[in-house]
């Protein structure tokens, strides 16, 4: 068997180069096809990554812990004690990179001219920075100094709506656990700018202790947000957090907290696969044609090999091996070309001309193609599996040739 395989391996390789021009044209087609598959997947992955990251910034975190009723009724009534015991221990273990216990309640903020409904976030600024949920750009003033900071940080969009600004006082109002109005005056210590105006108008940051004091909830918080800085594998580790949190708390990954974002991830992988299959299907016609021609030109030779005692299975394997050589060479060249063209673009492609449309999809003005070994592996699998499937018909026809008819072929 080993000898037979060695024989067909040599034959397949040499047969591949019998018609240099045809082989090189097909090789070029496979190379470009593989490059297109990986390039498209890298663009899509870059877009999805950006959308998900942007989404996770405002969510925030890859996993959140709440009182079981908080998502249905996000008020202080449904608050919880800050992490302690086994949950605190679990939050301090890898892969959890950072976590932040926060107070998040609906509120109204009023300036001397306007008032707006907002979401008041009582945060520890250091923890908020660690989970990547702190405002990205402070355009005036500063961010909160610590959890006891009594100032407020509002978005530039909200400042515009309220016709207020840095250093001005505003009144923030919400409900305490007894459904009484809880309010206090606070000075604006910072104005931030976010990627999306909606974010700027929606979130108001205050020191966690100051917000807890205003609401009269002691050390209670409404959510714990945590991150492992690897949103694609949240499903692997969040059950351990859920187990540590116990039955009294709800622990949800970002895919369930924001099902639109979760669907995006699945869609991206699905779309990439569909793109790869579509690209390869168009290539496969050329591949099949190449093999059919190669078999047609060698009918007598195949008859001879059968006459010499080569089993039909070996003839089939030889044609498939010829196809596999071609596919592997194309894959190698395509992957090299993809790495060479995508790597320099990973620092970003300026898409500001279509930024408005992109913003609607939750993206910024720069697209960052993301080269992924998974996409390279997937394109390799698609090319090899579909390529061999497409090669089966010509290989089968070669194997089923009648040696007497084949030997007499002129």
């Amino acid at each position, binding site marked *: 068997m*080993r000898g*037979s395989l060695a024989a067909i391996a040599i*034959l397949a390789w040499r047969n591949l180069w019998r018609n240099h021009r045809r082989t090189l044209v097909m090789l070029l087609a496979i190379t470009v096809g593989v490059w297109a598959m990986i390039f498209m997947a890298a663009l899509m992955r870059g877009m999805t990554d950006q959308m998900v990251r942007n989404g996770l910034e405002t969510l925030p975190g890859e996993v959140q812990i709440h009182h079981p009723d908080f998502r249905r009724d996000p008020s202080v009534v449904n608050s919880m004690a800050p992490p302690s015991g086994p949950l605190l221990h679990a939050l301090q273990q890898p892969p959890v990179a950072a976590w932040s216990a926060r107070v998040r309640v609906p509120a109204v903020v009023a300036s001397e001219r306007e008032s707006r409904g907002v979401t008041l976030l009582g945060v520890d600024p250091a923890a908020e920075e660690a989970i990547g949920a702190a405002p990205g750009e402070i355009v005036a003033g500063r961010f909160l100094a610590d959890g006891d900071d009594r100032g407020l940080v509002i978005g530039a969009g909200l400042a515009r709506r309220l016709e207020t600004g840095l250093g001005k006082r505003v009144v923030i109002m919400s409900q305490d656990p007894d459904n009484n109005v809880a309010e206090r005056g606070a000075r604006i210590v910072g104005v931030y700018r976010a990627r999306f105006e909606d974010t700027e108008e929606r979130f108001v940051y205050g020191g966690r202790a100051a917000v807890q004091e205003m609401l009269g909830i002691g050390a209670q918080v409404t959510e714990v947000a945590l991150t492992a800085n690897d949103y694609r594998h949240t499903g692997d580790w969040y059950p351990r957090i859920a187990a540590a949190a116990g039955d009294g708390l709800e622990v949800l990954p970002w895919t369930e907290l924001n099902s639109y974002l979760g669907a995006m991830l699945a869609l991206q992988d699905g779309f990439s696969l569909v793109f790869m299959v579509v690209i390869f299907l168009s290539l496969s016609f050329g591949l099949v044609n190449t093999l059919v021609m190669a078999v047609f030109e060698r009918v007598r030779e195949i008859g*001879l090999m059968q*006459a*010499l*005692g080569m*089993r039909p299975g070996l003839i089939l394997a030889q044609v498939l091996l010829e196809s596999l050589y071609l596919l592997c060479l194309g894959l190698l060249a395509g992957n090299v070309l993809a790495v060479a063209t995508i790597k320099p673009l990973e620092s970003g492609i300026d898409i500001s001309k279509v930024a408005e449309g992109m913003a609607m999809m939750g993206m910024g003005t720069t697209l960052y193609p993301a080269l992924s070994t998974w996409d390279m592996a997937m394109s390799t699998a698609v090319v090899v599996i579909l390529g061999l499937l497409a090669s089966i018909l010509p290989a089968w026809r070669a194997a089923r040739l009648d040696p007497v008819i084949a030997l007499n072929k002129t």
Partner: protein
Amino acid sequence: MSAIVCRDLCRTYHQGEAVITALDHVSLEMDEGAFACLSGPSGSGKTTLLNVMGGLDTPDSGEITVAGRRVDQLSRGERADMRLHTIGFVFQSYNLIPVLSARENVEFVMQVQGVPARQRRALADQVLAEVGLAGMEDRRPGELSGGQQQRVAVARAIASKPALVLADEPTANLDTRSAAQLMDLFVALNRDRGVTFVLSTHDVRVMGYARRLIRMRDGRIVGDEQQEPHPMKVE
């Protein structure tokens, strides 16, 4: 012991609506070490009989036994195995694999048989020298003359030491001198190695080499006689 036993072989082909009888109740026995020649005009059934003996074709009816095995009862794969291990073929038009060198062509059958590389290389070189092609081992078929190519085909046919060599019009494409050299080679291999040779030809000079001459016409054996070999003389 008989190398080949044919009993009542029939084989017909359909060409459009016409039915062509290639073998019509053919029966014969061939002893081991025989040197036999099938002769007759084109369409007499010589090639079909060789193909059936070699398991390349199957009879519509009748029995064929080669080296003790009922060829007509074997599956396609089993017939391939039988050809690989028992039979050497020499065809009219050289039929070498063009991407392989002379040595690799000779090694090919042994390689598929699983003979270790060093052993098959030594055997291939030895057999190529035996057929007069020493020094041409690395040439590809395109770099050899017709006679040399046919010698490579013979070397390939005998290198794996088959019990039977079937040669279909082996000299048809050769000039007189090359044909005589090839036939001398066949005779020597038959004599020295004891290989059974069955040739088909309609060349009377080739028939002269055979010790047994079987004449065919319209798919039937019309003559079967032992003869004293009388090889052609080439100036």
